[in-house]
């Protein structure tokens, strides 16, 4: 469909005019933050500075107790002399005063003292050099009081410096030919210009800042432009004109983009102004990092990001039925959109990697590289195209929302309350699992140190199983039907046999692939396998606790209840993906997400295709058992040759080919959208 520029322009002008006339929104969304943000920043920086000054000029009170009081006092006096010599040139030097106190710890707790020096004799601690018991001093302090902990820090370094000086003098007095400080000196030559060094810091944050500005600015327009119009009934008027839906969306997108861009520019200008006034303390080197050329390039780069975010906002606004609802979506959308903007915080992820295909994250990385003076033109172009393309695709999606009739014409199709327990369950299943997740998470943090057998039992039986039974009971569900406890076709078992090694190999390969992208430290992996496979547990026990139990209970909960609840409201493909992801998220450790989610997806697909939960249960149990066995007999499943994983994929494909041929679909799937 072609766009008629005159019509798009007329629409655009009209939208813009109306938004600018909405004075109250403009005031609360633009002017208010303009005043409040610097006020907050200035306020907190002022109180912080004031506090720092107080801590700087404070005379710290302390007492000396314990053994060797005299010796410690000498060191303290030496320190005091050294510091008071410095005090003539430097006013902010550490000042302290000894206070006589009989019960010094109580005084410390009352806040009368800032810290206490406690002398003691240290029994020979380190072996190298073998040492006699020696004089030691312990600085006793309160870490929950900033004056106490600052005092401790300062005293520590002051004493240490005194002791070092003493040591150096001692050495020199015995004829050491050079200043001890001149030994093995290190000279650092920095290849980066100060601008590029500042660019690194800036590059890590700039996308995040811009993203927040663009989103909050764009939301003002987007929410009003679709959800607001729906609410006011003007959208229907607009749809009866000869402007096409594509044109309408194009104009609305353009408006959102303009408003978002405008507000972002205003906010940045505002921030810069306050930086200029030194209300916000930021190094001036940042200015050097952004030359006019770089600024122009960044503008070009962030344009598709702004366009993409505008599409996202329009999409949510189009999805919402009212202004209020659209606002409700803003927070989750922002949180999700912010995630890719955090990519540059990861050290050393180059643009020349898979990240180049991730919209927003790629631009964020490109911006960082440009700011440190690194121009990878072909990849920058690719990143630009990927993000711009995603934006265009999402914009097209929002056109389809204008055609989704249930959304335009409120009231045509009302969401009637479900008539049976299963209907209610499918509505509430999300909340149930969110709560279950939180409970599992919290409980796990308390059982983290317990034996793995206890952990597994608590999780699987105490939480998953009881939670599932609660759901079954609460909604009076038919358990046999809900859990898909029915026999599959016999040939399916052949597929499962094929799939067990295939799934394990493919999942391991996938995990490895992700680990090569986002490396996980070997310590973490070791720690994990130590936690899972503890010493002194027999293989039989392991298989019972880590394979048989999960195979039954996890499938019961995820491929039984969760899958059933979701299948009544979602497209089967979405069901499979969501069940898999939820399954992955329930395993908490981020580095396991990909592997477990992948297996979760396989099991969900299997259950939907065979209409039975049993194959998934058997497969799950066997998969875990196989993984345990390979681990115990020392097959490094995560370090195989790549062709082995290839075989895994082939086996898996075969398994699913069998399932597809022998399919007996899960009842009640929604292959088609219910509205016409």
């Amino acid at each position: 469909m072609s766009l008629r520029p005159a019509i798009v322009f007329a629409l655009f002008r009209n939208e813009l005019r109306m938004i600018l006339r909405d004075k109250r929104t403009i005031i609360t969304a633009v002017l208010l933050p303009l005043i409040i943000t610097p006020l907050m920043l200035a306020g907190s920086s002022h109180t912080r500075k004031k506090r720092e000054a107080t801590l700087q000029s404070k005379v710290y009170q302390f007492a000396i107790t314990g053994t060797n009081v005299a010796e410690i006092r000498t060191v303290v006096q030496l320190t005091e002399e050294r510091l008071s010599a410095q005090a003539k040139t430097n006013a902010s030097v550490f000042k302290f005063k000894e206070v006589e106190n009989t019960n010094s710890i109580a005084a410390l707790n009352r806040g009368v003292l800032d810290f206490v020096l406690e002398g003691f004799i240290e029994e020979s601690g380190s072996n190298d050099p073998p040492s006699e018991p020696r004089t030691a001093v312990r600085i006793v302090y309160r870490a929950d009081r900033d004056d106490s902990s600052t005092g401790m820090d300062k005293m520590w370094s002051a004493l240490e410096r005194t002791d070092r000086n003493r040591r150096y003098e001692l050495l020199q007095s015995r004829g050491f030919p050079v200043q001890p400080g001149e030994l093995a000196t290190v000279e650092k030559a920095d290849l980066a210009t100060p601008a590029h060094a500042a660019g690194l810091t800036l590059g890590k944050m700039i996308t995040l800042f811009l993203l927040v500005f663009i989103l909050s600015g764009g939301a003002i327009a987007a929410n009003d432009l679709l959800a607001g119009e729906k609410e006011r009934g003007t959208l229907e008027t607009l749809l009866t004109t000869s402007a096409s839906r594509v044109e309408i969306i194009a104009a609305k997108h353009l408006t959102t983009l303009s408003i978002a861009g405008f507000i972002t520019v205003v906010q940045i200008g505002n921030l810069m102004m306050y930086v200029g006034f030194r209300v916000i303390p930021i190094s001036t080197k940042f200015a050097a990092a952004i030359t006019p050329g770089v600024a122009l390039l960044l503008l070009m780069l962030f344009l598709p990001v702004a366009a993409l975010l505008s599409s996202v906002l329009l999409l949510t606004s189009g999805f919402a039925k009212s202004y209020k609802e659209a606002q409700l979506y803003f927070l989750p959308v922002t949180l999700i959109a912010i995630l890719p903007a955090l990519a540059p915080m990861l050290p050393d992820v180059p643009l020349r990697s898979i990240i180049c295909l991730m919209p927003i994250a790629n631009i964020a990385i490109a911006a960082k590289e440009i700011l440190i003076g690194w121009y990878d033109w072909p990849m920058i172009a690719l990143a630009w195209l990927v993000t711009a393309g995603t934006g265009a695709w999402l914009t097209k999606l929002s056109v389809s929302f204008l055609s989704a009739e249930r959304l335009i014409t409120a009231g045509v199709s009302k969401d009637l309350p479900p008539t049976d327990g299963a209907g209610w369950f499918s509505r509430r299943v999300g909340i149930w699992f969110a709560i279950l997740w939180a409970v599992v998470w919290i409980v796990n943090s308390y059982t983290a140190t317990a034996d793995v057998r206890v952990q597994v039992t608590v999780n699987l039986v105490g939480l998953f199983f009881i939670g599932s039974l609660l759901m079954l009971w609460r909604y009076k569900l038919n358990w046999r039907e809900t859990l898909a406890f029915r026999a599959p076709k016999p040939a399916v078992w052949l597929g499962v046999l094929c799939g067990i090694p295939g799934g394990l190999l493919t999942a391991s390969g996938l995990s490895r692939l992700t680990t090569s992208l986002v490396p996980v430290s070997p310590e973490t992996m070791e720690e994990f396998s130590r936690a899972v496979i503890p010493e002194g547990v027999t293989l039989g026990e392991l298989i019972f606790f880590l394979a048989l139990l999960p195979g039954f209970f996890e499938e019961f909960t995820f491929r039984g209840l969760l899958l059933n609840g979701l299948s009544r409201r979602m497209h089967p493909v979405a069901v499979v993906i969501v069940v898999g992801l939820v399954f992955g998220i329930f395993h908490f450790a981020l580095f396991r997400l990909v592997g477990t989610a992948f297996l979760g997806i396989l099991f969900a697909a299997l259950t939907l295709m065979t209409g039975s939960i049993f194959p998934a249960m058997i497969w799950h149990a066997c998969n875990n058992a196989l993984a345990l066995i390979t681990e115990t007999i020392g097959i490094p499943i995560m370090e195989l040759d790549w062709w082995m994983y290839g075989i895994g994929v082939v086996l898996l494909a075969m398994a699913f080919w069998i399932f597809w041929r022998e399919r007996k679909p899960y009842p009640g799937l929604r292959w088609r959208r219910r509205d016409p």
Partner: protein
Amino acid sequence: MTNLDSNGPTKQRLAWNQIVTLYRYELRSALRERAIVINSILIPIFLYPLIMWVAFSGIMLVKWHSDSTQSRVVVQDWPREHPELRNRITREKRITLIEETNRFDPREISAARLDALVLFEPASGSASNLPGNFQVGITFDSSKDRSVAARERLESVINDYRREWLAREARKREISPEEWAGIHIDSKNVATKRQMGGFVLGMMLPILFVVMVAAGTFYPAIDCTAGERERNTWETLMSSGASRVNVIVAKYLYVTTFGTMAGILNLLAFAVTLKPIFAPLLKEAGTMLNFTVLPQSIPLIATGAVLLAGFVSAGMMIFAAFARTFKEGQAMIMPFYLIVMLPPIFLQTPGIQFSVPLSCVPVVNVTMMIRSALTGEFPMLQIAITFVASVLAIALCIRIAAYILKFEEVMIGNYNGSLKRFLRERFLAKPGRSMKGAHD
């Protein structure tokens, strides 16, 4: 000239059974409104734990990531007298030495194919008086995280080596190890786990608590005033037998309930989830924090939530009373919302004590009181002042709200939702064209 409800000699009374009925109706309809449930119940429970979990997982990820990356280093001209240093650098797990046959090109570092170049040279000047002394040049690129990490790793190896070299020299010159070692310094934190937990909570909590209470009151306050106008139920309610004061009191109580609930739920969610969130950090710091709330501080915290919610809801309802639509209500309340959130930001710096002057400032005093209650301190004078000051502030706000709502035009929503217009027409307009209103 009308002064609503006070035309006759009968003075308005609070009819509590009516208020309870109204209150229950408000509460029930609120619990069926998705926006309110999400904003006042679900977000307080889930939002911050979720954000913090993501943030800490992210930090851990970055840490793993940087710990597990190797530093690629080229070393030229190893000092022959110091094979031990060479050993140490070679043994360091996270440093990979790269053999370089040609002369080194610094562009390798700029292109991130290499992280650092180490060049050993004999010491010059006075430093050369010691035979075998050398100096190290490290070339790196501070615009690259990996290069900075490489430099730090190298420096730490060299520093360790220097320290031991000095000790060796000392022994050569017959300085006993005890004399050389001197005094050993150690530190010990005597704050209890609970005090530490309270300290961490106190850093984050004041702002979060106020934000949550304010967010909890935000939707209900708009919904029960502007929202009712939008849904055209306002007039239905006003034309019912319930007196206006009772309606307002019921609505006020309902908004306060939600604010209190949001605040307390948020606190609970926070206290329960902090441990799992900080688990990876705690593992390193040695479990030093205890986030459980003292039983004796629970009533004080709950009262604090009620006082704060009471003040915030009264303030919000003053503004929301003018609005005709939900959107307008939002715009009207936003400034108040932001102003309420300002003071706790100042309180985030550590070391601010719950002093008597602070206990006179609304919002601030309650947050300070809750903060000290969390650490197990109960300064009675300040708590008493906080109570009095908060109750006074609430009473004042309610007076203002009651005064404003006396005006028929406000009740019907005649000022186009504009506070400015209300003030202008009510107080500044010439008597001739002024609207009718309240009299004493």
